[in-house]
């Protein structure tokens, strides 16, 4: 997997594993804030700006939340 592809995969994986939390996108956003570094986030923000292909809806929402925080 290329780096971007892997990060998209990881974001989706996080959102999917947290789908039973009371507020899944926020749970995923909190997780990403705790563990992801600026470099990974910058890459994902650029990807969101480019349309965010491949990101599932909850993962996309989580990343938007992280960006807004």
């Amino acid at each position, binding site marked *: *997997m290329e*780096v971007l592809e*892997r990060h998209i995969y990881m974001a989706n994986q996080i959102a*999917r*594993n947290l789908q039973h939390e009371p507020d899944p996108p926020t749970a995923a956003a909190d997780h990403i804030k*705790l*563990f992801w*570094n*600026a*470099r990974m986030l910058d890459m994902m923000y650029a990807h969101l700006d480019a349309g965010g292909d491949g990101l599932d809806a909850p993962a996309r929402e989580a990343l938007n939340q992280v960006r807004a925080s």
Partner: protein
Amino acid sequence: MTYQPPKDFGTPESKSDEHVTLTIDGQDVSVPAGTSIMRAAAEMGTDIPKLCATDMVNSFGSCRLCLVEIDGRRGTPASCTMPAEEGMVVKTQTERLKKLRRGVMELYISDHPLDCLTCSANGDCELQDQAANVGLRDVRYGYEGDNHLGLETDTSNPYFDFDPSKCIVCSRCVRACDEQQGTLALTIDSRGFASMVSAGTGEDDFFSSECVSCGACVQACPTATLQEKSVKEIGKPDKAVVTTCAYCGVGCSFRAEMRGEELVRMVPHKEGKANRGHSCVKGRFAYGYAHHGERVLNPMIRTSIDQPWQEVTWEEAFAHTASELKRIQAKYGKRSVGGITSSRCTNEETYLVQKLIRQGFGNNNVDTCARVCHSPTGYGLKTTFGTSAGTQDFDSVEETDVILVIGANPTDGHPVFASRMKRRLRGQDGRDPAGLIVVDPRQIDLVKSPNITADHHLQLRPGTNVAVLTAMAHVIVTEGLTDDAFIKERCDGDAFADWAAFVSDARNSPETLEAVTQVPADALRHAARLYATGGNAAIYYGLGVTEHSQGSSTVMAIANLAMATGNIGRRGVGVNPLRGQNNVQGACDMGSFPHELPGYRHISDETTRQQFEAEWGAPLDNQPGLRIPNMLDAAVEGDFKAIYIQGEDILQSDPNTQHVAAGLEAMECVIVHDLFLNETANYAHVFLPGSTFLEKNGTFTNAERRIQPVRKVMEPLNGLEDWQVTQRLAQEMGIDWTYAHPSDIMDEIARLTPTFAGVSFERLDEEGSLQWPVNDAAPDGTPIMHMDAFVRGKGKFVVTDYVPTDEKTGPRFPLYLTTGRILSQYNVGAQTRRTENTRWHEEDVLDIHPHDAEVRGIVDGDWVKLASRVGETTLRANVSERMAPGVVYTTFHHPTTQANVVTTDFSDWATNCPEYKVTAVQVSPSNGPSDWQQRYEDQAEQSRRVGAVTEAAE
């Protein structure tokens, strides 16, 4: 310290709370009920002569040397088998006893060689001592009669010899193998005068028998019959220093027995609370790597990796490295450099490496090899219980009624703890044997071994741990087997209700999930009932749990099961991660992860960060740094340029070897700090030689959170202890560090980390070891956690929905590969491959089920190609029914196999821990090494050149 053999009380300690008082030789002595007269006498300082008794095994009463007289009783009972009773009056030395003992001794000596002066046990022989103690002056029988004097010595084991001519048939070795190790490889063959100690069957020698070379028999032997070859070669030690083994996470305590600076032997320390006087073939014998010829002792540098290494002085090495790091940061930015700490190094060394990165490099680009093993344990246990650590001490297993082993192979990976577990599983403590549930795709040894048969072996399909555990939870909840009082008092009620509703759903029943897990529903139901209702139930797990796409979920599913059944917060229960390397726990505790400071406190936490900033006098980056895979990604993309790697071999141990190689190759300064030119060093520009655990002071923290001292027994061959190397590099970079001793570093850790507040080298010297948290609330440490409340307050049930891994089998890759380790080798093998342990395991092999082998035309011993979607390698096949059809298995101890060439990019969703345990593969016959292996070997050979460029070999 002069050499003193450890005191032997003759029989094991009684654990009774009741005491009895008796009189021995006119002195009153009070001992726990059940204590033998022999031990009672030894505790007051009287050593009754003995030969067949030793406190590492139960009494046997065969040598008849330890006879005593008891007032009011007839005869002369053996003091080893006679328990002390209230009011007893005992005499240990009378004319009658003296005569009897001399008579016994005379018979022993009449069939024993009289070569004491040249015997390797001279001065350390119990037979010699007892002959002296009983005043033997004459052997009236002569030496002409039938005897055993000419028997041949069995030298087949690489570490010890068996000389039957010196054997007195006391059975101590047989009992040690049985009781202490639990392998039952030894027996007394034949009867009467023909009795002989025998390993395995009549056809076997020690090496070919089932003997696992743990050394217990050697330790138990009172004569030179079973003795270390090293003692024969060197002689008797002159001092002993207690230290901690540097192999697995059990953390055995050893006496390093020395003559001058030469290590004569390592003997397990009886007072060691992790191992209780036991050892395995690695810690006991496999220390030869410390003086192996391939060890690098001088620093080396080179400008590019296609050049040969140039040896330099330490000063040159530090100056060069510091200037490279500064140059790179100036050119590419502060975050262009980072480092990796090692679970093999001490707490103090690990702490310094992360401090160098945070304080000196000014970023949080620090990660550790625990990323690839137990990071899900940290995440999972912190989320559910509130702290990233196992809940019990090892002693706790003695009180366990049901043992659930999942994704761990203790007899190979954690052999000394496995022996303690096996004692409980065999009911050797006089109680009924504990129940055993094994959840593993392979038939590991514990499933069926001498006197042990698992009640249930749930042979699941790799990658379905969460489904199996959720199905167990389904049974426990729907059949009403939960501990409601515990849940109500100790756990978050809403979270429990959500979880209980989730697991009760029919889609999580064992019957529905059988299609996924391949575990028969009926067996799973029985196993779940046994776990929930069998009394104290404890879960032990290893990397077969963590190294999955859902590793963290599996850890939380385990925690859920323990909470639902009330199996937390007392002796005999709990959740117990078995850590791979010696200091995995410590490396995690010391702030090795990029998102947290020592003591598991997030880097974004203002208060904590300010504390560190004040102590270190430098501002700290408040954002998580790069993890190992991020560093490699960034390197490939050109904005990560330098890395300081202490004691790790990421090229061999991390997933997707080719990606790791590409990342390293893209960097401008790779600094490897290690004992040997490891695989990663093929891509290094600076090599800083490391020191072994024998050459430095510090502490390791084992799987039970036990902080134990590592003590220097010889000067470092390379001139510097590892913590000194890091300190000198930091100083060269202009950081003002002035640690004079690792104890100064521990003092700083204690100042900054609440769970370590009460830890110091002084306390450790007094106590032997301490289990964190050690603070005002628990001044003597914490053997069992979460006793009255969970660290996080209320225990949190977490819904763990089974999400299948995306690594799927299909027509091209129809088999699942899973990986693990073997007893004689350790991790990437850097140490054990440089010892005689390779005689037990010379190469990695591929275990494959006979059916899978047959349809591919593979017979035992064939070269086979192992291919995944990522890469391929070759190795030899081992056809074995331990495997389930459809699953193959290999170890990763040898660099030429490169098992991680085939493992994939998939990783745990929460922590990025790689999914080593599930790879879809195909296996096919092969002629020999793959192109990749050949290219790799060539590159490695080229890269390890030192000095002037040499002519290529023809």
